[in-house]
């Protein structure tokens, strides 16, 4: 690519930095902060080598933990920390991907690219600038994470290897986002394609690592097909495999090499995949706010449902494999019973996986609620509300999907996990309802976060996205809260802390009832505020 084609890249990058300064200022330091907190937590929780060894053999190496978080390469403090923050290898790529789509295809769809395109801007500049910022943010997060591990007293080589692996993993998916953004004319589909690729990479890694751990051997071949797998097998602190940093760099470069010519060759606003004409008349269902909401939410709903079903199958299968691997070792079972608070390892694992499903369902609910904010900001709520549609009626269409969507997704996730687990255990009749119940008890807590988003949207729509910050806080509390030895009062701020640990414990109705009550009250308060305020809000 010529220099002229990149004219304006730095100016555009500065524009992106200006627009994203708040999210960047929050998310880049969050990575090292989390890494440091986990180091400190482990130092306190597992102060001796013996304690770390017990944890390594009993918990860290269990196929379930390896499946969800990633492989563990040894019983040392560094190895345990790296595994524990393994979800960063999902989160950092996810944010990188969304950042690139946001500053390429979404800008183009909004028509702002056209304004900039008329200035002295090279053909490659918009994509190059988005990749530059996303890549630099990943590198900064990785470098700071390395420093945080160093500050926690871990060896330098491993710290650097971890930081680089994290950054490289982010780069691959930033570049993948760059390709996805060229394929379709709309940002939503581009995000969907990107998330699909990321999901497949995660599941491949999960399948390969779980298989490897269950057979007691090396990671299975699927891990080696996944950029997340490469990054998590760099083995920081356990004989670093520096050469494994090469494949993600090559993959990222290759994806950029695909994306740039795609971007340069196509028309502004067009996708590589062709747009088809649609119907000249609306289908009979498209006659009111609910019909419109169905039309707007059905795509994301199908995506979430499919994701939950696949995740349920994989998790359910992993739980069964774990159960069988452990059946030959009574000592280990005993240890796990004490660690997990239950006599059956499979149950403990189910509790762990449905908590992930519950969190995802909360994300789905928030996303559906915030769709209202997007509609209002784009002035698309105006023609609807200028029709014979009340504000409550309009909001109810969207809220229906914020409530029913997570219910459908959790049901599918619970069913598929129950089927996979039950089929392996040879007793579908017994396991299916238990796993399904475990998934469904998550719903009230997920809806509390959806209700909070509805309240924020009703009261202060400009700050509605703060619901995602609350979501992130709940995720951190759920994943590492206990490890960080946070006060119970803090842990109880998350609605998920109150969910009964089905099937390990019996389902208790009381917390489910009051969580549902809180969700309804938050939503009602949000609707009351929505009825009183200006639309669009000033």
């Amino acid at each position, binding site marked *: 690519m010529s220099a002229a084609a990149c004219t304006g890249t730095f100016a555009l990058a500065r524009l992106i930095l200006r627009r994203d300064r708040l999210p960047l200022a929050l998310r880049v330091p969050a990575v090292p902060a989390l890494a440091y907190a986990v180091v400190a937590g482990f130092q306190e929780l597992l102060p001796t080598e013996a304690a770390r060894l017990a944890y390594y053999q009993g918990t860290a190496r269990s196929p379930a933990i390896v499946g969800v978080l990633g492989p563990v390469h040894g019983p040392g403090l560094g190895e345990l920390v790296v595994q524990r923050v393994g979800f960063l290898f999902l989160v950092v790529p996810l944010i990188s991907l969304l950042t690139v789509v946001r500053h390429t295809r979404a800008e183009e*769809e909004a028509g702002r690219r056209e304004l900039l395109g008329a200035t002295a801007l090279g053909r490659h500049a918009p994509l190059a600038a988005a990749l530059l910022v996303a890549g630099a943010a990943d590198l900064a997060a990785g470098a700071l994470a390395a420093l945080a591990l160093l500050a926690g007293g871990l060896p330098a080589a491993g710290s650097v290897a971890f930081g680089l692996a994290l950054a490289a993993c982010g780069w691959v998916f930033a570049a993948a986002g760059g390709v996805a953004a060229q394929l379709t*004319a*709309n940002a*939503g589909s581009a995000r969907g394609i990107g998330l699909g690729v990321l999901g497949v990479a995660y599941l491949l890694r999960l399948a390969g690592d779980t298989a490897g751990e269950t057979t007691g051997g090396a990671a299975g071949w699927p891990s080696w097909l996944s950029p997340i797998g490469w990054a998590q097998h760099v083995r920081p602190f356990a004989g670093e495999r520096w050469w494994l940093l090469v494949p993600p760099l090559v993959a990222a470069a290759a994806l950029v090499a695909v994306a740039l010519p795609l971007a340069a060759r196509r028309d502004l*606003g067009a996708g590589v995949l062709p*747009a088809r*004409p*649609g*119907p*000249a*008349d*609306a*289908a009979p269902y*498209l*006659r*009111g*706010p609910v*019909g*419109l909401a169905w*039309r*707007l939410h059905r*795509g994301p709903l199908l995506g979430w449902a499919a994701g939950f079903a696949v995740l349920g199958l994989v998790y359910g299968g992993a739980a069964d494999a774990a159960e069988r691997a452990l059946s030959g070792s009574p000592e280990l079972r005993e240890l796990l019973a004490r660690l997990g608070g239950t006599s059956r390892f499979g149950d403990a694992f189910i509790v762990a996986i449905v908590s992930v499903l519950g969190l995802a369902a909360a994300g789905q609910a928030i996303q559906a609620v915030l769709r209202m904010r997007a509609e209002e900001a*784009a*002035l*698309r709520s*105006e*023609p*609807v*509300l*200028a*029709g*014979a*549609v*009340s504000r409550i*009626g309009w909001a109810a269409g969207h809220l229906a999907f914020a409530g029913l969507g997570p219910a459908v997704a959790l049901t599918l996730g619970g069913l598929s996990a129950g089927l996979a687990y039950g089929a392996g255990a040879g007793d579908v009749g017994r396991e299916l309802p238990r796993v399904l119940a475990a998934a469904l008890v998550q719903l009230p807590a997920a809806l509390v976060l959806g209700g909070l988003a509805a309240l924020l949207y009703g009261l202060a729509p400009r700050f509605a996205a703060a619901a995602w910050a609350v979501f992130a806080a709940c995720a951190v509390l759920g994943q590492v809260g206990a490890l960080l030895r946070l006060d119970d009062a803090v842990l109880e701020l998350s609605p998920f802390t109150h969910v009964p640990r089905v099937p390990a414990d019996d389902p208790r109705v009381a917390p489910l009832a009051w969580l549902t009550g809180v969700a309804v009250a938050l939503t009602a308060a949000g609707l009351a505020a929505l009825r*009183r*305020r*200006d*639309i*669009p809000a*000033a």
Partner: protein
Amino acid sequence: MHDVITMSGVVKTFGRVRALDGLDLRVRPGEVHGFLGPNGAGKSTAIRVLLGLLRADAGEIRLLGGDPWRDAVALHRRLAYVPGDVTLWPNLTGGEVIDLLGRMRGGLDPRRKAELLERFELDPRKKGRAYSKGNRQKVGLVAALASDAELFLLDEPTSGLDPLMEAVFQECVRELARDGRTVLLSSHILAEVEALCDRVSIIRGGRIVETGTLARLRHLTRTTITAELAGPPDGLADLPGVHDLRVDGRHVRFDVDADALDEALRRLTRAGVRALTSRPPTLEELFLRHYERPGNGRRAAEAAR
């Protein structure tokens, strides 16, 4: 018969900005009412208040006999709205949006839709994101015009339309007027206003500075007179209502207020007129006078009175 729209003393503030500052607006049944004003004068805010999307801080508002905030749903069955910038759902086709908006208003006539699609030469099978600005505007227009509403709130509805489509739009509005429907038309296109509107209101700084028929508004401004005289032009300079008098020998040129025109001509004929041209105020002059910045604008408006 009651007015279709009555706004009196309506105030709407956004933080420290007073978007509407004691707005008074009356729209009579069956009239096409032009709503004019510079950018940011408060036209769209006023229309959103009428739609019950924004809540006025003070003042009385009646729309079709109801309260636009409280009775929004019932009132919206009887009105149709076209925003100045129609935004569409990227994955819905134009035809789907037209049907959806029509049904949400209580139904639309498929034959009327087909007829309007043809008249506006709009392809209803394209997805929202594929339409140009003008075509998006056509989607909004067809959706509104295909309805059986009593009142049409049109907020710069023709922005982005080509002159042919502008003509089709004017034809449609004339048909509405013939059917006895009421139209509030916010516009910057003076030819459109002149061609369609019975009465106009001019808004500036959140208040109505002028309202009435175009003929009356014309009457309120000055006529430009150029004359060649037989003798010296005596008694013109001190006549109230004569402005910008320039005398060059026997040639005079001045602007005169409508109510001073009689006396000014009398004094000219006293001096003996050899040649005379008079030019009535153009609409542009009329509006420019009201559109100017508050300082000059007020002076000009007062002078015009």
